[in-house]
């Protein structure tokens, strides 16, 4: 997985962009732990999704594309890459 860390303009959160080994599919989103809000917008020209894991991060991307973006919350920003990669590994796990 290819990782790009960007500092947030507001001075708090961290933006982590990850290029996954394959395109995101809808079932991958089910494996993100702690997700309390999930939005998938199929009506847009590209199906945009956003997941929110309270107190940890939000995750957005396009179904069918491999690039996802994490916005890691201020309180856990020191573990931003670790949290993002752990979530990506779970997403990429094969179905049991």
């Amino acid at each position, binding site marked *: 997985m290819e990782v790009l860390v960007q500092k947030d*303009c507001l001075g708090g959160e961290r933006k982590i962009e990850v290029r996954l080994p394959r395109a995101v599919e809808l079932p991958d989103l089910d494996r993100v732990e702690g997700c309390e809000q*999930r*939005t*998938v*917008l199929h*009506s*847009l020209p*590209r199906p945009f999704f956003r997941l929110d894991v309270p107190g940890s991060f939000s995750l957005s991307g396009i179904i069918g594309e491999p690039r996802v973006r994490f*916005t890691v919350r201020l309180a856990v920003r020191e573990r931003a890459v670790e949290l993002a990669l752990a979530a990506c590994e779970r997403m990429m796990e094969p179905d049991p």
Partner: protein
Amino acid sequence: MSTARVSTYFDHAATSVPRWPTAIEAAVEAASQVTPGRGMHGMQQVAMAVVERARADVHALCPTGTVCFMSGATHALNQAILGWRPAPRRIALGPMVHNAVRRPALACGSLLWTLPATAQGRVDLERTAGEWPEDVDLVVISHGSNVTGILQPVAALVDLARARGAEVIVDAAQTAGYVVPLDLGDVALVAFSAHKGVAGLPGAGALVVREGVRLEPLIRGGVGHDSSAADVPDEPPARYESGTPNLPGIAAFGAAARACQDGWDFRAASAALVSAVEAAGFAPLSGALPVVSIDPGMAPDVAEDLLDRVFDVVTRSGLHCSPSAHETLGTESSGTLRLSIGRSTTPADLETLTRALIGLREVSSHPGAD
């Protein structure tokens, strides 16, 4: 992580692309030339002629003094503010200043005062006159806001400040190349970059120094002449141009400055941008310049991401390096989504923007869609 997708660009307030072809050509030609002003041979004379022609062309954009080449507007503003002597007792700051003004002003250690302003961030001249502290020595103001495009009444403010014994420094990063020429009254110093409205290359900028204004140079070194003296020359531009000049950047700056004498109507462009945004149902914070901010109805960084990935539309979220402006507007907690256009923006680009913003609006209206 690069993308092969072709995007429609609405971030000209950050940097203008595409740049003038004549500027690119001038930079390429200058890249093969020698260092100007070093030696007396013919090759350096050719290079020096490039610099002096560029100086004249940039002066035509801003005829308030001697053009001194810098690495950009930030360098020029640091030179202006940190080099001001004697150190100001109090600096009056515009209500919409960029960090390129705010941070060196804070670093000065001087007392600060923010000029009274309207809710939209325009300086309130009447209140400014009434509340003016007697110890203000220096005013630093951004001519145009990089957040909302609002223009400040600089000439009137200069009259007010000069009548009270203060001098004025103007950050013209957002107006140089759009407001042509920069007719700013009796300003002490004007700073701007080559790569925004002027659409030259990054890495070049100008500090325009009024006759009689003398700063402490930020850097000292060789200037190609008067080498036996202990210090750099007293007079601009050499006083502020120590070191090897960025000849390609300066050549491009001059070519771009010439191209900016095309009579482009930035106010009409601003009106077209506002119309495109309003057609999508948003109420932009706007001014005379073609840059506006909106509340996208969701976190601005999510909106930026969505517009980029779903609609191939490039915008800019956040504080835009101008926390002071966002404090003035009351948007400091989350920032805004900024949309800015330039000379190369077409009506078709604006239609693309409207369609994308309509899509964004639909998303913000139905956040739980699945």
